[in-house]
């Protein structure tokens, strides 16, 4: 690994952890109703919102009421976003005259943004109006992230509660997450992005005259717009000259900020953060990566503060950081090594100091190998899904890293809220495994782990892999699904496996190379995203309800300490073993087979 790469990674982690600590303590104050500074400014707004909606924020909910509120809220969110896309042609803020989104794509996109997935089967700049992008997607970026944070906070209350049914109030947690955490941070990041050159305008696309007219072959179409074929059955073309270019723009910066902070990932443009208007400079690249993991990292400190034992949060953070660094190392080294076949075929020196070095296919020169590999690891460790490089063009092992991070359940550091509650489920499994292995009492933070909690934890861990693998299995036999992949063999398999892993784990990034806007992917994907989000969140809340009703038992000689490096190691092993055992056969057919094919030729 080059010294430049090491420096970039060290600086990134230092800034991330340095900022996550105070943010985490601030978020703990927000969720425990203690003065946080911004409450003086935003308190009246918060109280006004409760009055407007007729809500009693002090009314406590048990886990079923909390789950029902989450589901009712999400159901309305999906319906609203679906309707907005279908009606965008007659709604305002549509300067480029975008037509209604087709039904299957609108359903996929509505579920995608309401589940914090942000899988995009469309090109934003040529499909969605400004109103859809702002009032639809950007708003859903806030509320879907806040919903995940609310479930986490309810789970923590379940761990800290003593013989109670109460987990807090969903509407209050949702409102405070948006108002005191996501909104202020988004304003700061959006202004930083504007400063760096990211557009924020209601003006429509602009047309630029090219300095050098470019000749090209234009397809001939009949009166109905269908391509005309020649005698050989190939599309007819005619010479043409391009003299103008349409440059899409819009309210990008505001969407960009929450896209990263809420680990949403849905880009304004089709190529997401690889687009120079979304991510124009190395500094914006750094800020975007920082924004993705800032809240998930900070929530570990929030957890430590809320359970009144900072060491518990630090252990989770240490386990996440260890897996993150190992995965990042594999990705950076694989990309820096490049493809040996290219060196053999063309004598191309991919490690020359005169260029970025390594495998630069599908990457932006302004980010280079490290900036791209780090972004890929960050965005898939979280449930973000934003990309600044095409993961499809990574080397097989470099591409395996983002895929595996998604398949591990996105617990490194994970999505806003969902990452930490996923890791806490692994922690519960870890204490249970320790109980089986060395006869320790299965307890976590003084709460006994019993069969019901283990059944629910098993569901949380098994639902996403089931959806990922079954979706892939169906995808490789359905003709319309196979027709959507750009490559054959192991790489084509990887494209389908990545797509279903991404949707089922609510990541949203695409491997690329897959024409995802097809009825099969739109409908199967919507199902996977919905079940992957809520058939895990509901069992998590069920565990929270069960734990809250229990006594906190004092630590005894048989209690496994969960604040030690030993437990962090056990947790890492549980996460990796569960992920490896579940997905190794599928990975062997995809990226591992491709890697062996590459080095064995």
């Amino acid at each position: 690994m080059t010294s430049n790469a090491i420096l970039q990674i060290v600086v990134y982690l230092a800034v991330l952890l340095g900022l996550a600590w105070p943010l985490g303590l601030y978020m703990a104050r927000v969720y425990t109703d203690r003065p946080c500074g911004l409450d003086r400014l935003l308190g009246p707004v918060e109280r006004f919102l409760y009055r407007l909606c007729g809500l009693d924020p002090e009314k406590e909910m048990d886990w079923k009421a909390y789950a029902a509120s989450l589901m009712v809220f999400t159901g309305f969110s999906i319906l609203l976003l679906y309707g907005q896309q279908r009606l965008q042609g007659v709604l305002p803020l549509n300067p480029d005259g975008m037509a209604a989104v087709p039904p299957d794509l609108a359903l996929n996109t509505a579920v995608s943004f309401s589940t914090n997935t942000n899988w995009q089967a469309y090109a934003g700049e040529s499909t969605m109006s400004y109103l859809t992008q702002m009032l639809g997607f950007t708003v859903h970026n806030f509320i879907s992230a806040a919903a995940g944070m609310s479930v986490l906070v309810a789970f923590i209350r379940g761990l800290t509660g003593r013989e109670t049914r109460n987990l807090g109030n969903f509407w209050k947690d949702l409102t405070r997450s948006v108002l005191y955490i996501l909104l202020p941070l988004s304003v700061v990041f959006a202004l930083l992005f504007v400063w760096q050159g990211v557009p924020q305008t209601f003006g429509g696309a602009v047309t630029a005259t090219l300095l050098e007219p470019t000749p090209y072959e234009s397809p001939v179409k009949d009166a109905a717009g269908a391509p005309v074929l020649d005698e050989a059955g190939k599309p007819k073309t005619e010479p043409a000259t391009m003299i103008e270019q349409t440059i899409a723009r819009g309210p990008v910066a505001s969407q960009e900020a929450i896209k990263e902070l809420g680990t949403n990932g849905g880009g304004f443009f089709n190529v997401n953060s690889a687009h120079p208007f979304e991510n124009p400079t190395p500094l914006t690249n750094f800020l975007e990566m920082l924004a993705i993991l800032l809240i998930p990292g900070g929530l570990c400190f929030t957890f430590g503060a809320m359970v009144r034992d900072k060491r518990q949060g630090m252990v989770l953070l240490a386990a996440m950081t260890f897996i993150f660094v190992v995965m990042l190392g594999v990705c950076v080294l694989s990309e820096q090594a490049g493809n040996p076949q290219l060196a053999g075929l063309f004598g191309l020196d991919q490690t020359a100091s005169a260029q970025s070095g390594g495998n630069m296919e599908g990457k932006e020169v302004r980010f280079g190998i490290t900036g791209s590999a780090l972004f890929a690891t960050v965005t898939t460790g979280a449930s973000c899904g934003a990309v600044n490089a095409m993961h499809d063009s990574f080397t097989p092992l470099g591409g395996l890293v983002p895929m595996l991070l998604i398949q591990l359940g996105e617990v490194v550091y994970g999505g806003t809220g969902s990452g930490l509650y996923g890791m806490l489920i692994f922690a519960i499994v870890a204490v249970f495994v320790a109980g089986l292995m060395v006869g320790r009492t299965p307890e976590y933070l003084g709460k006994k782990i019993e069969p019901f909690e283990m059944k629910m934890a098993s569901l949380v861990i098994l639902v996403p892999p089931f959806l990922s693998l079954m979706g892939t299995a169906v995808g490789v036999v359905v003709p319309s699904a196979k027709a959507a992949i750009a490559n054959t063999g192991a790489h084509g398999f990887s494209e389908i496996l990545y797509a279903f892993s991404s949707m089922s784990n609510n990541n949203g990034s695409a491997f690329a190379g897959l024409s995802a806007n097809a009825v099969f992917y739109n409908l199967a994907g919507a199902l996977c995203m919905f079940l992957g989000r809520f058939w895990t969140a509901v069992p998590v809340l069920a565990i929270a309800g069960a734990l809250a009703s229990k006594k906190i038992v004092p630590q005894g000689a048989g209690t496994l300490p969960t604040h030690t490096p030993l437990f962090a190691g056990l947790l890492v092993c549980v996460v990796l073993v569960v992920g490896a055992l579940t997905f190794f056969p599928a990975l062997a057919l995809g990226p591992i087979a491709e890697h062996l094919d590459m080095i064995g030729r």
Partner: protein
Amino acid sequence: MFNDIVFLGLVLVAVAVTIALAGFFDRLRSV
């Protein structure tokens, strides 16, 4: 329009089934 009705109906069914799932989990706990 037909597709719209079908898809919106599916969303409502999915939400209702998930809420029912919570009820099932609650009963499972008391068993």
